[in-house]
């Protein structure tokens, strides 16, 4: 038998049918292929200001000897500090190699063959992906006017529903449920299923009515909240994020977590990030200015847009988004096409410095010609 036939027999059907995600190539490769002299990555919602001064200092003074030894397997000091900041216990936190890894922890902990998870059709894809390649059904409720639609999600619940993922604010639409809306949803779901509130972009939201999931964990035993150091804290390259829930829930999830997946440098930098106030303020200020600038410019170009919370916006183009991607790449501007988020014809742009946003507007003007 050829290796191909053997593999065919070994692979479960749901893995065979799954298409692996192909990440973009390194900058140098892309610049060579597209023939551009520099590249602005506006595709992954990173912080254009990078990490805070405190984090940079911690990274510079990281003791190289530590590289040879295993890190704290459960991010001990980081969890201590998070507990202190949020008035919780250390065991209410579980740290992972990015929020992406904790998504997998939660699904592995609660779901078995035959179970399903519920999320929205047009949201961050990883919940759906992990469910699908684990052989679980991912049920998708359509958004309503760019917002998560609680009734459509509730309608999808059945006996086999284990987890409901709510992305708040939603990537890519920037919409969010306020406290009362979220509480009403928790009430309707009841205590028998896990509700995950993905707050990857929480630190960007200034609206008073935004629900602080970490505080709400005290009210709902079945609530699990995700946060990450990749977005506001500018540590995407170090891969570190965490979840917070009540202690019993976290203890259950911990069983499926891979220890030592979070490296020491990431733990040190994350810990230092938590000490900075300026960084959050400066980032929010930049977001405000750049969004204001973009709104004006997009209106001038007669382009529809969706600007909400978070460090990204969506723009509707009168053309194929994947063609627009390649045209913008030739000008050194890398955006995220939204076909894969089921928003064909839209692109998502991560907010960056004003001069880069100016280049983006020039790029858009060029492709509209």
């Amino acid at each position, binding site marked *: 038998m050829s290796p191909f036939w053997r593999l065919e027999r070994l692979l479960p059907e749901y893995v065979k049918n799954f*298409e692996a995600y192909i990440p973009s190539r390194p900058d140098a490769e*892309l610049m060579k292929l597209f023939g551009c002299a520099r590249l602005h990555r506006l595709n992954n919602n990173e912080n254009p200001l990078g990490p805070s001064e405190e984090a940079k200092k911690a990274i510079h003074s990281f003791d190289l000897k530590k590289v040879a030894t295993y890190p704290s397997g459960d991010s001990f000091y980081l969890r201590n500090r998070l507990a202190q900041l949020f008035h919780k216990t250390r065991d209410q936190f579980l740290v992972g190699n990015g929020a992406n890894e904790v998504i997998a922890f939660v699904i592995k902990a609660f779901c078995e063959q035959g179970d399903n998870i519920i999320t929205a059709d047009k949201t961050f894809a990883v919940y759906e992906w992990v469910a699908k390649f684990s052989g679980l059904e991912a049920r998708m409720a359509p958004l309503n006017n760019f917002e998560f639609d609680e009734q459509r999600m509730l309608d999808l619940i059945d006996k086999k529903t284990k987890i409901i993922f709510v992305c708040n604010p939603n990537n890519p639409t920037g919409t969010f449920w306020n406290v009362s809306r979220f509480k009403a949803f928790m009430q309707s779901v009841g205590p028998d299923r896990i509700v995950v509130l993905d707050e990857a972009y929480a630190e960007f939201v200034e609206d008073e009515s935004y629900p602080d999931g970490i505080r709400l964990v005290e009210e709902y035993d079945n609530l699990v909240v995700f946060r990450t150091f990749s977005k506001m804290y500018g540590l995407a390259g170090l891969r570190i994020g965490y979840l917070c829930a009540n202690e019993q829930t976290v203890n259950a999830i911990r069983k499926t977590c891979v220890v030592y997946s979070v490296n020491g440098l990431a733990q040190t930098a994350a810990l230092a990030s938590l000490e900075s106030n300026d960084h959050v303020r400066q980032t929010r200020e930049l977001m405000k200015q750049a969004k204001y600038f973009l709104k004006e410019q997009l209106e001038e170009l007669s382009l529809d847009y969706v600007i909400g919370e978070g460090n990204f916006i969506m723009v509707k183009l009168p053309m*194929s988004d*994947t063609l627009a991607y*390649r045209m913008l790449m*030739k000008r050194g501007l890398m955006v995220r096409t939204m076909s894969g988020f089921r*928003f064909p014809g839209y692109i998502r742009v991560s907010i960056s410095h004003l001069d880069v946003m100016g280049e983006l507007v020039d790029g858009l003007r060029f492709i509209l010609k």
Partner: protein
Amino acid sequence: MPKVESGKVELVANSDLSFLRVATSYVESASLAFGLGETETLSLTIAVEEIFVQLCKIMLPTDTIRINVFGSGFEVVLEFIFSSHDLDLRSFNMVCVPDDSGDFECNDETGMIIASRMVDSFSLESSESHLKLKLVKEKYYPEIEHLSVVTPAPSGALDIREAGVDELKELTRMASVNYTQAAVPESFKFPGKVVDMASVGYLKTAVAKDNSGVLAGGLVWKSESDKLVTFRGPYVAPECRGTDIASRLVDYMLEHVARTNALGVMSTWPSSDLPTQMFENLGSQFFFEDGRQQEVNAYFRLLNEDDGNVVTVHPCMVDFLREKYLDLFLARHIDTFSDSGETRAAHSVLSAFILRMSNRIILRPVIYGRDAVENIKAHVNFLMADGLTNIFFQMDLGFADNGRFAPALIHNSFQPRIVVPMAGKSDMVIFQYIPGGDH
């Protein structure tokens, strides 16, 4: 949607003529069980007999042949799978190219040719170690003459959703009376078949309806391969022309194919209502029939971000590709190979995917050999003589051996027409045979 007969049966037999009856009666009972009529079953049985006999001639009696029969409601698919080890693969060309050595006998009509005439589609696929002959026979469906009837005009808000049985039949009628023949699939003449295709998930559908259930438009699509989705339409009720309904139908399809394995969506026969600004124009192909020709643009869009690639091609392809890639803003580094006199197989093998009903042949390279020019010429002569006038050649730039056919194709009046990004292992160049040369 009603349930239709579907399933799979398998037979493994030695390639020994004493098992011929076993093979034919097995295929006969399977195809009847999967709902084919007696006439269609008889055609399929004749095809099996021809192929089995031909395989017995070139294989050892100890070799085995796997015969799979799949029923999918509207058609029966028959596969012969066998090891290609030690076989003279020349036998799998549709036509025979005589050579001087005299060690290969050329008959006028190979069993494969006879078999191909008995079925609706016929193709040869090769993997590293196996060959697969695939024959498809469709169920009989009555042809419906679609009549123009007076229907109320759709009004108010429109909802887009998957078509139910009656909605799908209504769509075949609405499209057939309002659009040119070329813009509507052949299958729309057989609404029963379209319904069966949809009920087994082979065909996906979208219809736009108003609150009282009046049809405003529709669109159908299917997976052409792992990576490519093709669609027909969008069809819009005359009262709704010029509204955003066509774009909404296209968006509905795109949202459904996003996050699947598909990398691209294409229509080589779009309707006049296609919102072309949402697609990329890949260039045109011709359709030749009854001495007339029609030129149609192929519209395409990728579903993902193409981060560029390196392709290695024959020097004669460089200008064509450079221009296409520039037009499509595709980042491609073009490398070339040339023939430096290295030893090559003497004989080439082509697979012919024959779609008799729609008068279309797609030639695909299996093995490159020194006789490529003669082999292509022999295929063209044979197919044209058989009344098949639309001959295409698919070249996957992901396989160097594919690319070697380029000069032989050009020599035989084939023109590279379009490049479909990432439709194979890499980009797919579609050549078309242009009778009489320049067009």
